[in-house]
């Protein structure tokens, strides 16, 4: 009997949580037009979320490009297909690693800072103060951050892939001595703008929504204590990462299951 009660309570809890998150998302979307009218708030958030993630994203992209080129060269040279190195690096970056790794880094770099910021605002009762002054905190605080995150992540993912391909070019062409003409021309004939680059950007956009909404929701719903903020920050990283990986599989299955 106790088990039954426990199961029921757990289910209701989960449902309540989902409904709450969905309502939160809907209210935030409704506040987007209002915050677009005060565009300087959005610009400040793109700076905080996008510009300040540049270093980690570009450094990781470069490292991933370097390592992919080295590892792929090792495997491809066995079959005498070292020229296809550029193609493999390009497809893996543009389709998968670019969006997914940037989103994971983004959740760690920008998501946590959003959660901690909103959580501390809540703990300091700044959000309640805004409500008292009849300022909608969703339009003033949350919606600009949502737009900032959604704008920033696709751009960061594109940068990650581009820097990665250049890193692979440095290793393959400059260090190993793969033919530069083949390196680029095989890419140009085999990589499709819409199927590969376009779908990668759609992925990055979806991940941008996921990362930002999870971070803002966790911050907004945090317990107004130091432990609460710490807990919410951790949950942001864990939940966004799991969502990104899960959604990536679903999106890949939808986009690339037919050749």
């Amino acid at each position: 009997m106790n088990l039954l009660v426990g199961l029921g309570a757990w289910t209701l809890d989960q449902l309540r949580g989902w409904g709450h998150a969905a309502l939160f998302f809907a209210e935030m979307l409704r506040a987007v037009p209002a915050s677009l009218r005060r565009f300087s708030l959005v610009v400040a958030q793109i700076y905080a979320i996008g510009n300040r993630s540049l270093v980690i994203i570009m450094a990781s992209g470069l490292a991933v490009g370097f390592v992919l080129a080295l590892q792929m060269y090792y495997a491809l040279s066995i079959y005498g297909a070292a020229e296809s190195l550029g193609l493999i690096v390009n497809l893996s970056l543009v389709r998968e690693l670019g969006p997914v790794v940037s989103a994971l880094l983004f959740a760690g770099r920008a998501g946590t800072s959003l959660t901690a910021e909103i959580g501390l605002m809540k703990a300091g009762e700044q959000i309640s103060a805004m409500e008292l002054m009849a300022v909608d905190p969703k339009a003033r605080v949350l919606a600009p951050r949502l737009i900032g995150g959604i704008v920033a992540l696709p751009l960061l993912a594109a940068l990650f892939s581009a820097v990665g391909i250049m890193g692979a070019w440095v290793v393959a062409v400059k260090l190993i001595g793969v033919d530069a003409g083949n390196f680029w021309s095989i890419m140009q004939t085999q990589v499709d703008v819409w199927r590969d680059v376009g779908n990668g950007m759609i992925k990055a956009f979806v991940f941008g929504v996921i990362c930002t909404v999870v971070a803002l929701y966790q911050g907004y719903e945090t317990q107004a204590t130091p432990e609460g903020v710490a807990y919410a920050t951790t949950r942001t990283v864990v939940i966004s990462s799991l969502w990104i990986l899960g959604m990536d599989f679903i999106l890949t299955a939808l986009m690339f299951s037919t050749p």
Partner: protein
Amino acid sequence: MNKRKTEALVGLFVLLGLGALAFLALQAANLGSMTGGATYTVQARFDNIGGLKVRAAVRAAGVTVGRVQSITLDPQTFQGLVTMDIESDFQFPKDTAAKILTSGLLGDQYVGFSPGGDDANLANGDTLAQTQSAVVLENLIGQFLTGRADDAGAAAPAPSPAPAPATSPAPATPEGLK
């Protein structure tokens, strides 16, 4: 930090991101090689299209002159109906032959044009009369094995005739391969 500086830095960030996107599209994908110019379509029927895919190249003498636009099955003849977009800059005689070829040993398949000698050129919507299907490895191996069995039979007449394996009609005759 003042507002103008923030705005300038955000502008730089957006520019950088769009630049990366342009690099991916133009240098690392096929947008740069896509021609926005006028094209005309021609069709060809093949007994077997092998592994030909939509957007595969159409080449004449190795030069890409167009792309495969669509591949369907002709319901009357049960042949693969391949529709190709050819760039208007390239004109071919009416009796041009189309072959499905493979780049390299394991590369992707493309349509190769061998121009004929006709005075009139292909027009939009024309159908190529002469085609040669893709080489299917299984059929080739089948032919090779039958050929070997026949040779053995001719050299030393066996008491019972060598059973000829029933092969499906091969689309590519050995003569066509030479």
